[in-house]
C-alpha cells in the first residue's frame, strides 16, 4: 500500500525518460505526457482518499526503516499538494500543446516539464532533509532548462541570474544540512523533529533554521524574491504559468513543513522574523505589481505578494491560521495557473505584453476575458471564490492572535493586487478594439479549456470550502501536532 507514494514521483519521471526516445514525434509526446499526468492525478486523488480514511502513508524506500533509509511521508498536507501540483501541471501542459513552438517541443520541453513535476512531488513527499535537497535540485534543474529554453536574449539574461542565485541557495541548503547533521546526527525529518524537541531547539538549531529560512525564502520568494520577477517574465507563457503555480509553492511548503515539524520551539524568534519578512514581502511585492505595465511583470509580482500572505499565516502559526495558509496555498496554485494561462494567452494574441500597446480584446475573445476577470477576482479574494475563503481563514487566525498591523498590510496589498491585475483586464480587454479577428499572432484559444477548468475549480473550491476544509483540517492536524508525523514514520501507534 505504501508504495502508492512513489507513483507521483516516478510516473512523470518514467514518462519523461520514454519521451527522450520519441523526440520528433510531437503528437505522441503530448499523448504520453498528458496520459502520465492523468495517471498521476488519479493516483494522487486515490492517495488523498486513502490517507483521509486510513492513516498517514509512509514508504520506506529500499525497505530501510527510518532514520537509516529515506522515507516518503504522505500526510494530508503533502498528498494534497501533490495532487494539486500534478493537476496544475496538466493544465499548463494543455495550454502549452498549442502555444509552445515546435522547436521547443523537439528540444525536450515535455520531458523537462515532467521532470519538474517529479521534483516538485518529491519535495512534497520526502521525509528526509537531504533528499529534499535532491528533489529541489531535480525541480530546479528542470526549471533552469525550461527558463532558458529557446535562448532569447531576455531568457538568457534572466536565466543566468536565476540559475546563479539558485545555485548559491542550493549550496546554502547543503551547508545548513551539514550543520544540522553535525548537531543532530540524523537526516530523517521525523527523527530530527524528535531530536530537536529533545534539546528544546537551542541557539545553534535556531541559527540553522535561519539558514534554511534563507534558502526556502529564496525559493519561495519570501523577502529574498529579487530574482523572481525577471525570471518569471523570461520563459514562454506556459512555462511561466507552471513556474508561478508550482515553484515558489514548493518553497512555501518547505517553510511550512520545517517550521511546523522541526523548528517550532522558539516561535518568538523564528516566527516573528517570518512574520515581518512576510509583511515586507507583501508590501514590496505590491509596490512592484503596481509599478509595472507589462503583464508578465505584474503577474510575477503578484506571485510574490501571495507568498507573503501565505507565510503570514504560517508565521501566526495558530491552527486557524495554518489551515488558512494551506487553503490559500492550494487556491494560489490554481489561481496563479489561471491568471498566468489566461494572461499568457493575451500575450500570445498580441505578441507583446506591454499593456499600453493593445486594447479591446473582449470583442472577439469574450470567454478569455471573463476567465481572466474571474482570475482577477480570485486573486483579490472576492467571494465566493477560493481566495476569499483562504483570506478569511488566515485573517481569522491572525486577528485571533492579535496581529492587526500585518493583517492590515495583507488587506492593503490585496487591494494593490486588485489594482494591478484589473489594470491588465481593463487595458487588454476593454477600450477600442484595434485588431480584428484573424490579425492575432496566435488565437489564444488553447487557453480556454484549461482556463475554464481552473475557473470551475476555483469557484468550486470557494463554494465547497466546507468539503475542502475537512481535508485541510486533517493536514493542519499534523502541522500543529508533529507527533502524528513522527508516530507515522516510526510506526508507533499512539494510545
Amino acid at each position, binding site marked *: 500500500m505504501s508504495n502508492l507514494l512513489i507513483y507521483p514521483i516516478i510516473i512523470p519521471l518514467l514518462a519523461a525518460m520514454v519521451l527522450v526516445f520519441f523526440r520528433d514525434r510531437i503528437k505522441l509526446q503530448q499523448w504520453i505526457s498528458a496520459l502520465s499526468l492523468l495517471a498521476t492525478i488519479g493516483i494522487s486523488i486515490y492517495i488523498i482518499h486513502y490517507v483521509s480514511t486510513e492513516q498517514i502513508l509512509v514508504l520506506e524506500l529500499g525497505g530501510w526503516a527510518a532514520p537509516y533509509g529515506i522515507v516518503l511521508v504522505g500526510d494530508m498536507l503533502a498528498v494534497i499538494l501533490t495532487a494539486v501540483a500534478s493537476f496544475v501541471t496538466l493544465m499548463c501542459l494543455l495550454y502549452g500543446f498549442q502555444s509552445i513552438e515546435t522547436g521547443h517541443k523537439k528540444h525536450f520541453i515535455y520531458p523537462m516539464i515532467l521532470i519538474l513535476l517529479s*521534483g516538485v512531488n518529491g519535495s512534497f513527499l520526502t521525509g528526509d532533509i537531504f533528499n529534499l535537497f535532491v528533489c529541489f535540485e531535480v525541480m530546479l534543474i528542470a526549471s533552469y532548462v525550461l527558463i532558458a529554453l529557446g*535562448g532569447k536574449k531576455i531568457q538568457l539574461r534572466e536565466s543566468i541570474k536565476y540559475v546563479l542565485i539558485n545555485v548559491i541557495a542550493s549550496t546554502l541548503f547543503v551547508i545548513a544540512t551539514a550543520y544540522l547533521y553535525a548537531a543532530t546526527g*540524523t537526516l530523517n525529518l521525523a527523527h530530527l523533529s524528535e531530536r530537536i524537541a529533545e534539546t528544546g531547539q537551542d541557539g545553534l538549531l535556531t*541559527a540553522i533554521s535561519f539558514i534554511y529560512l534563507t534558502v526556502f525564502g529564496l525559493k519561495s520568494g519570501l523577502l529574498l524574491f529579487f530574482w523572481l520577477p525577471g525570471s518569471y517574465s523570461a520563459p514562454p507563457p506556459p512555462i511561466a504559468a507552471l513556474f508561478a503555480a508550482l515553484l515558489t509553492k514548493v518553497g512555501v511548503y518547505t517553510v511550512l513543513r520545517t517550521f511546523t515539524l522541526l523548528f517550532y520551539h522558539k516561535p518568538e524568534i523564528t516566527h516573528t522574523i517570518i512574520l515581518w519578512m512576510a509583511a515586507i514581502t507583501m508590501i514590496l511585492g505590491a509596490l512592484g505589481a503596481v509599478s509595472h505595465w507589462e503583464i508578465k511583470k505584474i503577474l510575477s509580482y503578484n506571485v510574490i505578494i501571495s507568498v507573503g500572505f501565505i507565510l503570514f499565516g504560517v508565521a501566526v502559526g495558530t491552527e486557524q491560521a495554518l489551515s488558512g495558509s494551506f487553503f490559500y496555498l492550494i487556491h494560489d496554485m490554481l489561481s496563479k495557473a489561471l491568471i498566468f494561462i489566461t494572461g499568457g494567452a493575451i500575450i500570445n494574441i498580441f505578441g507583446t505584453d506591454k499593456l499600453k500597446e493593445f486594447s479591446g480584446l473582449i470583442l472577439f475573445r469574450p470567454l478569455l476575458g471573463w476567465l481572466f476577470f474571474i482570475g482577477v477576482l480570485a486573486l483579490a479574494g472576492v467571494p*465566493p471564490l477560493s481566495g476569499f475563503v483562504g483570506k478569511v481563514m488566515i*485573517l481569522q487566525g491572525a486577528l485571533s492572535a492579535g496581529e492587526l498591523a500585518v493583517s492590515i498590510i495583507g488587506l492593503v496589498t490585496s487591494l494593490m493586487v486588485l489594482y494591478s491585475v*484589473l489594470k491588465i483586464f481593463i487595458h487588454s480587454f476593454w477600450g477600442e478594439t484595434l485588431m480584428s479577428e484573424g490579425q492575432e499572432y496566435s488565437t489564444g484559444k488553447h487557453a480556454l479549456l484549461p482556463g475554464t477548468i481552473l475557473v470551475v475549480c476555483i469557484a468550486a473550491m470557494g463554494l465547497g470550502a466546507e468539503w475542502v476544509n475537512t481535508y485541510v483540517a486533517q493536514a493542519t492536524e499534523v502541522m500543529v501536532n508533529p507527533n502524528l508525523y513522527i508516530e507515522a514514520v516510526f510506526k508507533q501507534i499512539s494510545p
Partner: protein
Amino acid sequence: MSTLHLAILLPFVFVVIIPLLYKYTRAIHTGWIALLVPVTLFVYFIQFFSINKPIEPITVSVPWIPSIGINFSLYLDSLSLLFALLITGIGSLVVLYSIFYLSKDRERLNLFYAYLMLFMGAMLGSVLADNLLVLYSFWELTSVSSFLLIAYWYQRKRSRYGAQKSMYITMTGGFSMLLGFIILYVASGTLSIREIIAMGDVVSSHPLFIPAMFFILLGAFTKSAQFPFHIWLPDAMEAPTPISAYLHSATMVKAGVYLVARLTPIFGAQLEWSWTIIIVGIVTLFMGSFNALKQYDLKALLAFSTISQLGLIMSLLGIGSLALNPNYAPYSEYFIGALVAGILHLINHSVFKGSLFMMVGILDHETGTRDIRKLGGIMHLMPISFTLTMIGAFSMAGLPPFGGFISKEMFFTGVLDLASHSNGWAVIIPIVAWIASIFTFIYCMILIFKSFTGTYHADLLERTPHEPPFGMLASPAILAILAIALFFFPGLVDTSILEPTVKGMAPSAQLFIDEPNWHVHISAWHGPTLELFMTIALILIGVFLYLKIEKWKGPLFELLPKRLNLFTLYDKALVGMEKASTKITKTYMTGSTTHYLAYIFTFFILVVLITLFGTGSFIFDTSQDSPLEWYELMLGIATVIAAVFVLFSTSRLLSIISVGVIGFTVSLFFVIFRAPDLALTQLVVETISTALFLLCFYFLPKMKASVESIKFKLTNAIISICVGVTLTLMGLTAYGYRVFDPIAEYFSNSYKLAGANNIVNSILVDFRAFDTMLEIVVLFSAGVGIYTFIKLRYAGRNE
C-alpha cells in the same frame, strides 16, 4: 433552502439564463425577460408588508462553511424588508424604463441585463444576510457588478475610468469592512449579526472593538459616497441612465446606510460611532449640495445631490444612535426621532431621486444633451416631463406637498435637538445644515427651471424634443405619485416600517424602556415651529439667490482653492502611487545579480549571527580534534594560497587552473579524511569541470582588472568576510555541539544488510538509492539542458 434563499437566487439564475437565451429571443427586448425578476420578487416581498402591523422577523439558514462560521443565514425584518422592497420595486421600474431607453438593436442587452440581475441579486443578498461574511460577499458582488455596469460602454475612456474609480474606492472600503467583520468574529465567536447584538458587552470589551468599528464605517462611507470618498460617484454617472437611476437612488449607495442602520445596535452606544457619522454626514451634506451648484451636466448635478442627501441621511442615523448612549439617555426620545427621520428620508430620497434620474435620462434621450447651458424653454414641448421633474425636484428641495418636506423638517428637528442636548459647539451643525438646505433648494430650482424654462435654443440641440413614449414616462410617473403620497399618507410606513425599524436599531434606548408602547407618528403639519421658520427663510433666501445666481456663482467658486480638489487628488494619488512604487521598486530591483546576492548574504549574515550570539550558543572546542600533521597544514596553506591567487589573478586561464588546483587539493584532503570514493569522484569531476571551463573559455572575453569603485569593493569585502566568519562560527559550533550520536553505526553492518563492503557505495546504491536515482535525473537534465541551450536558438537573432 428556504423561499427567501430562492428569492436571492432568482436574479443569479437569470444572470445565466439571459445570456443563454439571448440568441433565441432577439425578437423581443431582453428587458421584458429581465423584468420578470424584480416584479416577481417585489410581489413576493410585498406579501410580508402590512400597513398596520410590523413584520414578524424571519430567520432562515443554510450551512456554507460552518467550520469558519460562515452560514448562508438570512434575516428578514422591517429594515431589510424596506430595502428589499426598494430594490425590487424601484428595480422593476428601472427595468421597465430601460426597455424604452435602450435600443435592442444597438446595445448588447444580454450583458446589460445579466449585469443588472447580478447587481440586483447581490443587493438583495447584502440586505438580507444575517451572517457578516455572507453580507460581505454580496457587498463585494455589488461592487463588482456595478463596476461592470458603469463600464458598460467599455470603449469609452470615461466609463472605464469611472468604473475603476468606483471599484477601487468601494473595494477599499469593502476590505476594510472585512477586517472589521473578522475582528467582530474574533471578539464574539460568531458571524451572525443577531447573535453579536445579543452578546452586548462581551463584544464591545474586546480591545479591537473600536478599530473594528472604524474599519466597518470605512466600508459604509465608501459605499455611500460619504466625504471624502464621494469622489467615485460623479464619475459613475458614465453608466447608462437606468443604471444611475437604480444604483444611485435606491440601491448601491444606500448599502452603506443600510450597514450603519443594521450595525447601530452593536456600535451605537459608542460616542465615536455617533460623532464620526454625524460629522462625516454633515460635511458630506454641505459639500455635496455646494458642489451641485457648480454643475452644468444634469446627471452630475444629481450625482452631487445624491452625495449630499446621503450625507443627510447618515447624519440623522448618527444623531439617532446617540439614543443608545447611556449619557444621552434622558434625551433618547429626540434622538429616536432623528432615526425615524433618517429612515423616512431614505425612502423619500429613493423615490424622488429615482424619478429625477429617469427624467434626466428622458431629457437626454429627447434632446441629445444634459447640459443646462444648452437646454431651456422646452416646458411647452414636454409638459408632462416638466411636471414630473418638478414633483421630484420639489420633494428634494423639501417643499410641501411632497414627501421630502416632512423628512427635511424632521431633519431640522434632529439637528436642533442635537445642538441643544449635546456639546456647545454642536450648534454649528444646524447652521451648516440650514445653509446646505439653501443650496439644495437652489440646485433643485436650477434643475427644473434652467432646463425647462427660459429661452429655447433649437440650434444647440441635436433634435426637436417631444414627449417620450408612455412606457418611458410610466416609471417616473409612478415615483412622482409616490412622492406626493408620502406627504399625505406618511402613515403608510410609520407602523409597518419606521417603528419596528427604529425599535430594532435602538433596542436599549431609554425611550423604549420607559415607554414600551411608544409609536411613531408622522404628520405633515407640526404647527409654527422653529423648523418651519427655517424652511420659510430658506425658501426666501433660496429664491433670491437663485435669481441672482449668475452674479455670485462665478466669483464664489473662483475663491475656492483649486488644489484641494479631491477629484484631482485621487488622480494624483494614483499616479503618485505608481510613481512612488516605481521609484521604490527601482531602488532595489536593479537587475544586478551582485546586488541581489549582496542582499541575500546580508540577510543571511544578520539573522544567523544575531541568533548565534543572541542566544549565546557559540561553541569553540578543540578537545576532540584529531592531530594535525604538518603536511596537512601545508596542503591547507597551499589551498588558501591558490584561492587567494584566484582573487587577484586577471588571467582567466590562471584562475581556472588555480581553481582546478584547489579541486585537486580537496581530493587530497578526501584521501587524508579516509574518503577514497570522494577523492576519486572529486578528481574526475574537477578535471571534467576544468575541461568545461576551457571549452567555454575560448569565447569569453579577456578579464579586465576590476575597475570597480573602492566602495563597491569594500562593501563586497565586508560581506564576504562576514559570510566566511558566519559560516566558520556556525561550523565550529556545530562541530563542538555533541549531544546526539550520528546514525552512522547502523551502516557498519552494510555487508550483512546490503551485501556490500563499501559502505559509502552501499549507501549510494541501496540505503539512499533514491537520492542517487534523483541525482542522475539532475545530471541527465543538465546534459539535455546544455544540449538544448546550444542547439535550440531563437530564430530571430536580432530581436
